[in-house]
């Protein structure tokens, strides 16, 4: 066993911290104990399942096609997740499918096409997972904001349309504001990295015994990839969703917005 492996005993000991959280919940009457225990158990089962599948995928004898199949599955799951989190957004699933596919293709081309990493299961799955996983939140924020902005600012949008502006122009100030909001948190995360928190990949590599500077280089590359992927996703969702919210003859469709 290497220094990074904690074993089942280490995992069991780390449950002490879950016990602390449960104890605090009981003490404060938060009634979150069941949720915490369920989440803890579920996370363990999910991660173990993924771990065993990864064992198969990273095996040098396994075809790389399995890794790509997993990437496709991740894109599909991301689309379902976006629909579950923003059901009020029309066509969110198809839009997310298109946007994440396009941005994943672009990002993976940069990573693997330019030779930053070799194309093997050990690199394809985790890198694609980080890029796609980080994009979901931004996609949901961007799409909900666009819908909200256009619903709330309908009088202004229609005043612009009534002046003869095409929908692309009439919606621009509102879509731009929504996209800025969706991207800002990722930009802030990128700025704060290293100062406020040590991100996961870097922490994992250091715990696994890698040279900290090597770990930093890997992490920086991943942060840039995530930023590029998130930005691509958000802009694609912005273009696709806005197009859906207007008719070809430049009318804003009726928007059923929840919570407004």
């Amino acid at each position: 066993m290497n220094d990074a492996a904690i074993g089942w005993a280490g995992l069991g000991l780390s449950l002490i911290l879950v016990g602390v959280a449960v104890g605090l919940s009981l003490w404060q009457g938060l009634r979150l104990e069941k949720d915490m225990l369920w989440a803890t158990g579920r996370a363990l089962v999910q991660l173990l399942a993924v771990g065993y599948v990864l064992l198969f995928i990273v095996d040098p004898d396994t075809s790389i096609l399995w890794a790509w199949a997993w990437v496709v599955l991740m894109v599909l799951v991301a689309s379902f997740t976006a629909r579950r989190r923003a059901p009020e957004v029309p066509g969110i699933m198809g839009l997310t499918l298109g946007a994440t596919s396009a941005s994943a293709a672009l990002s993976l081309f940069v990573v693997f096409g330019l030779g930053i990493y070799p194309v093997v299961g050990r690199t394809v799955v985790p890198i694609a997972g980080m890029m796609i996983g980080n994009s979901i939140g931004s996609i949901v924020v961007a799409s909900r904001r666009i819908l909200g902005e256009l619903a709330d600012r309908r009088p202004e949008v229609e005043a612009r349309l009534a002046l003869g502006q095409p929908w692309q122009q009439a919606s621009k100030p509102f879509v731009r504001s929504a996209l800025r909001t969706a991207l800002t948190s990722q930009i802030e995360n990128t700025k704060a990295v290293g100062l406020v928190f040590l991100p996961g990949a870097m922490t994992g590599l250091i715990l696994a015994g890698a040279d900290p500077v090597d770990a930093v280089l890997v992490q920086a590359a991943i942060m840039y990839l995530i930023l590029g992927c998130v930005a691509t996703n958000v802009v694609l969702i912005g273009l696709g969703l806005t197009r859906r919210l207007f008719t070809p003859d430049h009318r804003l469709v009726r928007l059923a917005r929840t919570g407004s």
Partner: protein
Amino acid sequence: MAAAPEPGPPLFELAGVSLRLGDHTVLDHIDLTVAGRGITVVVGPSGAGKSMLLRLLNRLEVPSEGEIRFRGRPLDTLDPLALRRQVGMVFQRPAPFPGTVRDNLAVADPDPKGGDDDYLAALRSADLGPDFLDRSADELSGGESQRMCLARTLVTNPSALLMDEPTAALDRDARLRLERTARILADAGRPLVWVTHDLDQAERLADETVVLVAGRVAEGGTRERFLAGEVRE
């Protein structure tokens, strides 16, 4: 309703026009001719479908059935953007854009042929002085803001105007002032369709009156009863 002979085709002709939103019929088989000059007032109680009728004319809505013609040409054969610049629309609540009055007018035309003179002419037509050009649009009173929206519409040099209860949020003085402006614009050759639920205002403004009740053009007794103030909300 159209009485006097018109020079050229009417401004709008509606034949069997209905508008349904989901299960709700907003307008039901409207047959209507809007005169090519003067002020046509569409009057009716709240919820009668007056605003939707106006939105149809600007193609912010499309009819579920029937046909609308603009100066003799079917509306659905016209470029909607060009139509909207020909048929300017002023909404019930002013919707100023961020920035100055000049910024607002620039949304309608960022590069007018006559430069600032075109903006000043639009302001003058909307009864606003030249000093308004560089004022912040957020700081205008309700009446001034509505006039600025009218000026913004006039920058596109529309040949007709649609005004959707433009005085609903204004005090009496501002209301009368905007009515005077509308009359001047109409007399200068821009036919105008004005929507209101206010019978007194309809009486002051109308060259022609269309009464709309429950999504239908009211004729005969219903029309007379509404105009006599016997039918309310």
